C-alpha cells in the first residue's frame, strides 16, 4: 500500500510549444477521445508493451481523470508528462523507461 505522501504529486505539465514538439516525435499516438476510464489506462499499458525503451507514447483524451489515472496506472514503466489545452482536451506523454 502506498504511503499517504505520494497522494499529491501530479505529473509535470508541458508548455504548449513543447507539447507540440514532442507530439511530432511520438512513436505511438493513441486516440482516446470519447473514451472513459479505465480503457485509456488499459490501452496505455498495452501500448507500452509494444514500444521500445526510450520511445514516446502519446495519448490524446478528453476525459479529465485520465491525466492522473494513466500516469499512475503505468507506474514505473514510463515517465509521464501532461498537457492541458484549457478547453477539455488533454495529452498524456509517456516515455518508456
Amino acid at each position, binding site marked *: 500500500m502506498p504511503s499517504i505522501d505520494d497522494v499529491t504529486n501530479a505529473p509535470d505539465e508541458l508548455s504548449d510549444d513543447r507539447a507540440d514538439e514532442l507530439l511530432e516525435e511520438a512513436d505511438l499516438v493513441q486516440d482516446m477521445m470519447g473514451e472513459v*476510464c479505465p480503457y485509456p489506462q*488499459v490501452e496505455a499499458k498495452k501500448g507500452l*508493451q509494444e514500444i521500445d525503451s526510450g520511445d514516446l507514447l502519446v495519448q490524446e483524451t478528453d476525459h479529465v481523470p485520465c491525466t492522473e489515472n494513466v500516469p499512475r496506472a503505468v507506474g514505473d514503466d514510463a515517465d509521464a508528462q501532461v498537457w492541458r489545452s484549457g478547453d*477539455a482536451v488533454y495529452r498524456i506523454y509517456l516515455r518508456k523507461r
Partner: protein
Amino acid sequence: MVATLLVAAVVGIAIGAFLQKGRFCFVNAFRDFFAYKDSRVTKGVLAATLLTMVFWGIAYQFGYYQGFWTPDWGLTGLLGGFVFGVGMTYAGGCASGTLYRAGEGYLQFWLTLLFMGVGYAGFTVAFPTLESTYFEALTFGTGATLFELTSVPGGLVALAVAIGGLLVYATLTGRSSTAAAFGERADVAQLNPTALLAPVVGLRQFGRGTAAYVRGLVRAWRNPIASSKRPWDPRTAALGITAAAVLWFSQVSIVGVTGPEARWTGYLLSQVGVDAASFDYWGSVLFRGQGVGITVDMVMIAFVIVGAFVAALWSGDFSVRVPKRRRLPNAVVGGLMMGAGSRLAPGCNIGNIYSGIAELSIHSFIAAVGIVAGVYVMTHWIYRDVGCAI
C-alpha cells in the same frame, strides 16, 4: 418549503462542484486500488465517510436530524450490490460519478442515466413478483443503525468507529512501509518491526501526510483564483461533501442518489401519460402514497448536475463529449445494471458506502461488501490482458 428548496439547491450545487473538482469517483476509488494500488481517491472516500459519520453521530446525539435510511437487511444487499458494482465498473462511473460527468458534458453518461432510468422502470414493473419471491426469501432482519441500537451517545459511537478505522488504516500502511524499509536494509534489521510498531509508524505517516496536505491547502489559498481552476485533492472534496451532507442530514435526510433518480423516472413517465402511481413501487414505496410529484431530494440531485456543470465550466473541463461507438454498450449495459442493481440491493454507492456506512446501517455494511466485490470482479475482467495488482 422555500427554505428547504434553497437548502436542496445549495447542497446539490456544493456536492456537484466538489465531486467534479475532486474527481470524486467511487469506481476510481476501488478499481484503481485493485488494478494498480492507487489509493488516492480511496483515501478521499474513506475520509469523507468517516468524517460524515462523526458529524452525523454528533447531530443525531443532539437531535439535529430528520431520519435515517435503514432498509431491512439480508442477502439482497449482497446480490443487488454486486450487480450494481459490476454495472458501475463497466459504465465507468458510479451513481454520483455519472451525475457529475453528465454535468461535465459527457453524452456517454447522459445515455447511462437514460438506461439507469430503464432499469428503474423495469424493476418497478417486476416489483410485485420480486417482492413475494426475491425480497421475501432473502431478507432476514429489520433494518437498523448501530446509532439507535446502542444507548451510547451517537457522537461517541461514531468517534470510536472512526478512530478504529484510522488505526486499522495506520496499521496497514505502517506495516507495508516498515516491511519495505527493513526489506531493503536487511543487514541493519536488528530493530525488527513488530505488529505493535506498525500502527505508530502508520499514524506518524498519516500525521505527516495530513500536515503536508494542510500546507498545500494554505499555499493554494494564496492564489485562490488560479487554485480554484486546478484539479483538487480528493480530500478537499471529502471535506466539502461532508459539510454539505451534514447540512442535508440536519434539514432533510441522508444523501442518496438512485432513490431520487428512480422517483425522477416515475415522475417523468407520469408527465408523458403513464399512470406511475398505479405501480406499487412508485405509488406506495418511493412516493409513499403521497402522489407522484417532485420531492426535495429530487431537486437536490438535479442541482448536483448543475454544480458539476458550473465547476467544469470554471475549470475549463466542460465540453460536449461524443462517445466512441464502441463505448455505447458500457452506457447501455452498465446503466441497466446500475438501475436494476440499486433497486435490488436497495441503494447505490452513495446510499450504501458513503451515507450507509456513515449512518452505521446494517443493510449498508452488507451492500457495501457486495458493491466492492462487484468492482473487484469487473476490474479483473477489464484488465484481463494486462493484469491487476490485487
